[in-house]
């Protein structure tokens, strides 16, 4: 069920071996569908009142996480955000243990102690999602510091929303990363909104200028085009791995749902038309699907089949999670100290 272990192409590509063009993009397609359908289930769990608390859905932004993680090795690091399910899945986490975590179950990635906003997984280099906006910029930079100092050639990717541009610590660590030429990529997922406010109301100047100020390599990409993301990210990651230094990548994207699953009436901050336009014109899965068909790497029926398979997989993963036991209450004070 774990895409990393169940999918040979992914393993090979993660290990740096070239897979065929076709296999690579079919895998990326499946990964994006996984995220989309994972989030569908999350919303469903919420509306059925089966999930404790809230969750922030990644639907619409799949090409960013997948485009980037497909360019990473399994031992490379990522840090993620409150909107983190996509990053976790793209880096290789299993839906079953993720759902279990979202329901607070013992078989969850964090034994239920973390929940939606804190999924972490050493096996896939996932240092953890973070519920503090900008909270993980230091952690990702520190992982790059360790990689450099320990002399392994790992790279760290720091995912964050454009809202994190408001946090001063980002500027502190970008300065450090550039001074020390650390292998870290700052990926700004500009989904246009910080909660209920358009980013232009909170962001003076430009996004790229924020990194450029430190002499950091910057780039911008259409975050709905997984191939474009992957290509640019691939270059920046290679550059970082070779020791040249950090990079900052702005990915323009859009979240289809509300800020969190409970944010239903949102017309006071954005219109239904706007949402509809992104969904119909720029959906990352459609964009890649059309290309796969155009290139004759696939056809409508085969793609449909992927949706079907993934949906089944998600259903059984949810079932696993629902049936899983809660941790024993005695566990509450375990893992406070190592």
């Amino acid at each position, binding site marked *: 069920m774990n895409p990393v272990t169940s999918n040979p192409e992914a393993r090979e590509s993660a290990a740096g071996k070239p897979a065929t063009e076709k296999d690579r993009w079919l895998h990326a397609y499946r990964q994006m569908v996984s995220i989309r359908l994972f989030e569908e289930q999350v919303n469903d769990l919420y509306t059925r009142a089966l999930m404790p*608390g809230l969750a922030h859905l990644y639907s619409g932004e799949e090409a960013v996480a997948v485009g980037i993680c497909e360019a990473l090795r399994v031992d490379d690091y990522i840090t993620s955000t409150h909107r983190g399910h996509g990053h976790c899945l793209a880096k290789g986490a299993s839906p079953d243990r993720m759902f279990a975590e979202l329901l607070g179950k013992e078989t969850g990635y964090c034994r239920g*102690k973390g929940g939606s906003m804190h999924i972490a997984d050493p096996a896939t280099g996932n240092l953890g999602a973070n519920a*503090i906006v900008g909270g993980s910029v230091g952690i990702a930079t520190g992982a790059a510091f360790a990689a450099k100092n320990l002399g392994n050639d790992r790279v760290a990717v720091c995912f964050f929303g454009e*809202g994190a541009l408001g946090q*001063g610590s980002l500027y502190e660590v970008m300065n450090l990363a550039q001074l020390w030429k650390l292998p870290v990529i700052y990926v700004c997922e500009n989904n246009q909104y910080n909660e*209920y406010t358009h980013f232009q109301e909170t962001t003076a100047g430009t996004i790229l200028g924020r990194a450029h100020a430190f002499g950091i390599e910057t780039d911008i990409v259409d975050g709905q085009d997984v191939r474009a993301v992957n290509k640019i990210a691939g270059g920046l990651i290679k550059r970082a791995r070779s020791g040249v230094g950090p990079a900052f990548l702005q990915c323009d994207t859009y979240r289809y749902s509300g800020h969190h699953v409970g944010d239903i009436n949102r017309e006071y901050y954005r219109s239904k038309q706007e949402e509809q336009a992104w969904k119909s014109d720029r959906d990352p899965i459609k964009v890649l699907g059309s290309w796969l068909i155009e290139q004759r790497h696939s056809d409508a029926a085969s793609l449909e089949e992927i949706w079907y398979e993934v949906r089944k997989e998600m259903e059984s993963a949810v079932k696993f999670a629902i049936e899983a036991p809660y941790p024993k209450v005695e566990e*509450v004070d375990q893992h*406070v100290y190592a």
Partner: protein
Amino acid sequence: MPERELTFAQAVREALAEEMRRDSRVCILGEDVAEAGTPFKVLSGLVEEFGAKRVVDTPISEAGFTGVAVGAAMTGMRPVVDIMFGDFITLTMDQMVNQAAKVHYMSGGHWKVPMVMRTTLGATRRSAAQHSQSLQAWFSHVPGLKVVLPSTPYDAKGLLKSAIRDENPVVFFEDKMMYKLKGPVPEDDYTIPLGVADVKREGDDITLVATSSMVQVALGAAELLEKEGISTEVVDPRTTWPLDEKTLIDSAKKTSRVIVLDEGYGRYGVTAELAAVIAEGAFYDLDAPVKRMGAMHVPIPFSPPLEDATVPTEQTVLEAARSMCGNQ
């Protein structure tokens, strides 16, 4: 005429609206405070009445806009900053502690910082370790700050108005779980002085000293104890600083048994100070050691059964009180 009832959130909003009408220097700064009225909807409607110049949406820059509030307070405004989750005060500590709290003193009394920070506390919302903390102990530790912990809609309105009119930086903690709690709130322009405890319920056998969210827990436990024949007094300090030591000590002397309750982590927390003050002030009258109940010394877990175990409940308070009164 029946007393008017408001929710806790409405009481907070009414206090803000009244003070903003009364004094044009009062303004609000925070994330999504305007159209969205905050994620908790506490501020809904304010931007419509007072406009975007006085109800100001900020970027996600807690340190930055708190610092701006300090400077604005020094130079003629009376800002109220909104820190969505109490866990994010971690980002404002330099501005609150090294700046706001010390400006008046360091300047030999020349500059003043009349600002309010409104923020939240409390677990059990399944929000996990970074959105569930109750960090009031930190600010209570810092000379130059005042710290308010309202426990009812009535107190919320009266205390917030006092906080806004105060010439000092005041931190105002609101329990997220209490926003929907209803209670009587007069329409008048009343204030409640900072530093005066409130006896929320009188009793003779045991005193529960409780803050914020724990006041309702204490009142619930008191009801249950009543059925067992234990008469319980519930004392709410309302502000941890200034602290009304006398009311706490007097109640302890009267009942000779005390449990102190606060939702912050139990270690080096608010309960430690309250217990120490009572143990010292009522030393010769206590029948048993003061018992402290706070959040378990663990990061707040997400998983519901675990999270529920971290916080005092009516049941655990009942048991503690029962055993203290020898009715086990």
